[in-house]
């Protein structure tokens, strides 16, 4: 056997996907299955005066029409949100709180008939004035949630850091910047929509839920808590997931209504959302309005950071943040810089918009924080008339400062920010680009170079701090090695394209000296997989990856006993070397793990249990802190406001790299989403609360033609506390890139005096900024 970790092994999951043999949710077709379609409110805020089901019920093939009142009678109308501070309606009950809110469900023999009948459900609304802007919500002139006490739209205030010291430091700083920086509402929009097939088997009393789920175990527990069905009677299966990006973490009304219908009718019920339902009702992301202030000395040494945020949470507080962290890991807002003082606060408000606040391809609220600090540093550089690279270099947390205690409470594990930035500057040819820019500026051409030297925190997380529904955010692995030396590996995570079937096999193969090709990885079935918290927030490798390595080491410990037995030496004389067990001092005497596996079943030592399997629940001692330097080079067309991204370089440091090919693929994908967020992706509401981006003709996903070509490289600074030194990478590119694009455009417009434009940087916004400046 040879090395498994660090090898660009081709993906084990691909053979089924390239043949069209993946099995996604909508591919599941059970005998007698019925279909659910939902009725939605056209009003963002309205009282429901009446619902008339009769015409819909009369359509041949319609089996049931379910309303909020029906659910309330069954005590299933309200759903607890994940962090437990709020609850949300399953179907609109009494009033609707956002446009497209689910009002009723129609169950029918086909999708077409269900949609036909949806049109015939007559709902009488009494429109109410909507609250669309979180700053308007703050006024409390219209109270959205009648069901809550006290009567206010304010959800919570959260703060971290030394408020007084920060204020003092800012007040005495020679140079200060202040800007309202908005991370606009957007949506993950994986290409596979969300869906469920709920199958209540009245004979066995078991409820099987096929769900597009990034966290099947958590969903099992949640369904048990809501319905009162014992957890052993619920079986959640998350089949192949066609992209998630955070969208498939929450529990949605469609899931609940389909489940209720299956429980009542006793046949399987399928619900697959339309793209419009996906964009208008399921987990949105961001919507943070951040007032960022940075103080510095005249020489460019930062003195303090203060960020005050207004968060728009929509109609229910269903943000998918850990219980004790309502604003997630927003405290990472000091970024890669050594701030002597810092303070951050977040106030969240209800508005007439759908609930969510999910971590869209990022750890909880890390994208917002990273955007704020990286934009802030550029604004400060501008004010100081300093090269943004130089400002960053001066203020980086230095290599020797790790482990670094940040003023907002994190302990950064490892990093060498200056070295990574240096590498990026060399590759992109920074000096030459600045020279070219200077020449272009003389000719009036708009060229910009944008840099982002971000640090994120991922891998939630240590159980003493992080939980969901009270469940600690550990993760798990189970390994069974078969007699002939192949095996099955199961984890509590659920991949959606990240390549776990390959990388998990590589971790276990590396630890055990087995061929990853012969290690089958299975996830997503709660009957077989060990309990885990799922895949989101870049937690799979930092948490489950640790569990896998440690489970494998447990196997190895037992294997060592068996090896000693086979080698007829004392256990102390056995050493694990070159992926096999040898005898200290006797080079040619060894046994392979395959031989050990066979012996575990055929010839175990007399005092040892037969078999070779184990599980491990890993509670990580700390979060991990991946980082990187991203550089964008852009050209701006002053006539139209169009931005052309000429080059984009990402130099990432995610610690130990398990599969370089997969890591690079993750970075490409995250960069494309960061590009989309910077330039086109937004969920916008007009003043009446109408969603203006209800399908892919208006919610813009870039194609291969708009998306730039990506250049990537890396440095490797392993995490000291992670069993294999890995930090996680799936989200770095999405967290780190938007600000590189925006900084580049602002740099291009610098000669005109333009300092900030809110994302997305549409042509018109850029054009307007240029026109207003000149």
């Amino acid at each position, binding site marked *: 056997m040879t090395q498994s970790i660090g090898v660009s092994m081709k993906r084990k*999951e691909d053979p089924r996907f390239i043949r069209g043999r993946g099995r996604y949710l909508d591919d599941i077709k059970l005998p007698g299955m019925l279909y659910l379609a939902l009725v939605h409110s056209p009003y963002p805020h309205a009282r429901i005066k009446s619902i008339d089901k009769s015409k819909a019920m009369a359509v041949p093939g319609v089996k049931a029409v379910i309303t909020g009142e029906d659910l309330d009678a069954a005590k299933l109308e309200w759903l607890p949100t994940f962090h437990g501070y709020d609850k949300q309606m399953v179907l609109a009950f009494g009033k609707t709180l956002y446009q497209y809110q689910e009002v009723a469900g129609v169950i029918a023999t086909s999708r*077409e008939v269900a949609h036909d009948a949806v049109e015939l459900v007559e709902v009488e609304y009494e429109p109410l004035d909507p609250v669309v802007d979180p700053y308007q919500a703050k006024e409390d002139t219209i109270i959205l949630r009648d069901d809550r006490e006290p009567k206010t739209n304010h959800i919570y205030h959260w703060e971290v850091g030394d408020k007084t010291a920060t204020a003092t430091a800012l007040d005495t700083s020679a140079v200060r910047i202040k800007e309202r920086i908005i991370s606009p509402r957007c949506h993950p929009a994986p*290409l596979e929509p969300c869906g469920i097939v709920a199958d209540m088997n009245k004979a066995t009393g078991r409820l099987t839920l096929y769900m597009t789920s990034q966290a099947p175990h958590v969903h099992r527990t949640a369904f048990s808590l809501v319905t009162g069905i014992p957890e052993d009677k619920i079986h959640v299966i998350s089949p192949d997931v066609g*992209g998630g990006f955070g969208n498939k973490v929450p529990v949605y009304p469609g899931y609940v209504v389909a489940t209720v219908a299956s429980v009542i009718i006793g046949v399987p019920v399928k619900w697959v959302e339309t793209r419009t339902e996906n964009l208008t009702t399921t987990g949105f992301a961001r919507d943070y309005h951040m007032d960022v202030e940075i103080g510095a000395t005249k020489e460019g040494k930062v003195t303090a950071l203060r960020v005050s945020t207004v968060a728009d949470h929509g109609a229910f507080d269903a943000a998918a943040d850990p219980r004790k962290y309502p604003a997630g890991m927003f405290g990472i807002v000091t970024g890669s810089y050594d701030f002597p003082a810092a303070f951050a606060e977040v106030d969240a408000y209800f508005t007439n918009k759908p609930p969510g606040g999910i971590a869209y391809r990022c750890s909880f609220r890390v994208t917002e924080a990273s955007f704020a600090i990286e934009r802030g540093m550029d604004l400060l550089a501008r004010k100081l008339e300093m090269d943004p690279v130089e400002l960053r270099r001066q203020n980086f947390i230095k290599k020797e400062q790790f482990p670094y205690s940040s003023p907002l409470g994190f302990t950064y594990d490892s990093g060498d920010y200056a070295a990574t930035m240096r590498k990026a500057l060399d590759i992109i040819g920074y000096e030459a680009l600045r020279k070219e820019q200077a020449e272009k500026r003389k000719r009036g051409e708009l060229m910009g170079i944008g840099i982002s030297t971000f640090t994120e925190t991922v891998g939630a997380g240590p159980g003493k701090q992080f939980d969901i529904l009270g469940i600690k955010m550990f993760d798990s692995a189970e390994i069974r090695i078969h007699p002939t030396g192949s095996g099955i590996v199961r984890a509590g995570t659920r991949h959606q394209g990240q390549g776990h079937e390959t990388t998990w096999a590589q971790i276990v193969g590396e630890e055990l000296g087995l061929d990853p090709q012969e290690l089958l990885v299975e996830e997503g079935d709660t009957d077989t997989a060990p309990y885990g918290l799922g895949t989101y927030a870049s937690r799979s490798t930092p948490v489950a990856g640790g569990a896998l390595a440690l489970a494998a080491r447990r196997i190895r410990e037992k294997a060592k006993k068996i090896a000693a037995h086979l080698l007829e030496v004392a256990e102390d004389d056995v050493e694990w070397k070159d992926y096999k067990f040898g005898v200290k001092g006797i080079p040619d005497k060894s046994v392979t793990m395959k031989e050990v596996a066979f012996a575990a079943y055929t010839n175990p030592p007399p005092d040892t249990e037969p078999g070779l399997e184990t599980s491990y629940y890993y509670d990580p001692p700390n979060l991990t802190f991946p980082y990187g330097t991203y550089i964008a080079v852009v050209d701006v067309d002053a006539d139209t406001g169009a931005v052309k991204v000429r080059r984009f370089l990402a130099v990432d440091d995610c610690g130990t790299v398990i599969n370089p090919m997969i890591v690079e693929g993750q970075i*490409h994908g995250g960069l494309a989403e960061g590009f989309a967020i910077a330039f086109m992706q937004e969920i916008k509401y007009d003043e009446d609360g109408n969603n203006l981006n209800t399908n892919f*003709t208006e919610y813009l996903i870039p194609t291969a*033609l708009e998306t730039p070509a990506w250049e990537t490289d890396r440095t490797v600074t392993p995490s000291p506390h992670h069993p294999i030194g890995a930090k996680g990478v799936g989200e770095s590119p999405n967290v780190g890139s938007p600000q590189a694009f925006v900084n580049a455009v602002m740099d291009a417009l610098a000669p005109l005096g333009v300092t900030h434009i809110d994302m997305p940087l549409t042509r018109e916004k850029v054009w307007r900024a240029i026109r207003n400046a000149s």
Partner: protein
Amino acid sequence: MKINVTVNGTRYDRDVEPRMLLAYFLREELGLTGTHVGCDSSSCGCCVVALDGDRAVKSCTMFAVQANGHEITTVEGLEEGGKLHPLQQAFWDQHGLQCGYCTPGMLMTAYVMLKHKPKPSEAEIREAISGNLCRCTGYQNIVKAVQQAANELTAEPAAAAVGS
């Protein structure tokens, strides 16, 4: 309405409602679930199939009744004699897929494109797949995969000559 459609070389006779979209005909009537549906607005291209071998079409924007008397090739029809089509192999080799949801549509769009344009440039590949969305890969490895397949498909006769 009664229709006959040849899919991946097999003729199927079915009675369908006129409103049944071709994508759902393939998925629900024929069980060929490799063709996916990702939107309602003809935007995403997850549902692309080949019509009569020479046109890539979005099967969610075509009714099954329109396919009456025509030949459809889906992702399931790419493999020949147990051997992956060079495009399938290239997507695997180049890590041209992650979640796999857009993959069948991408493969079918590229499959038709390479028939008309056997030696596309990178820009031409990006243009040709711009009716297909991908959320995972950032497109770069898809472009590389199509390039690999194009090279292999155009090199094949030469390789065969060497072999004989």
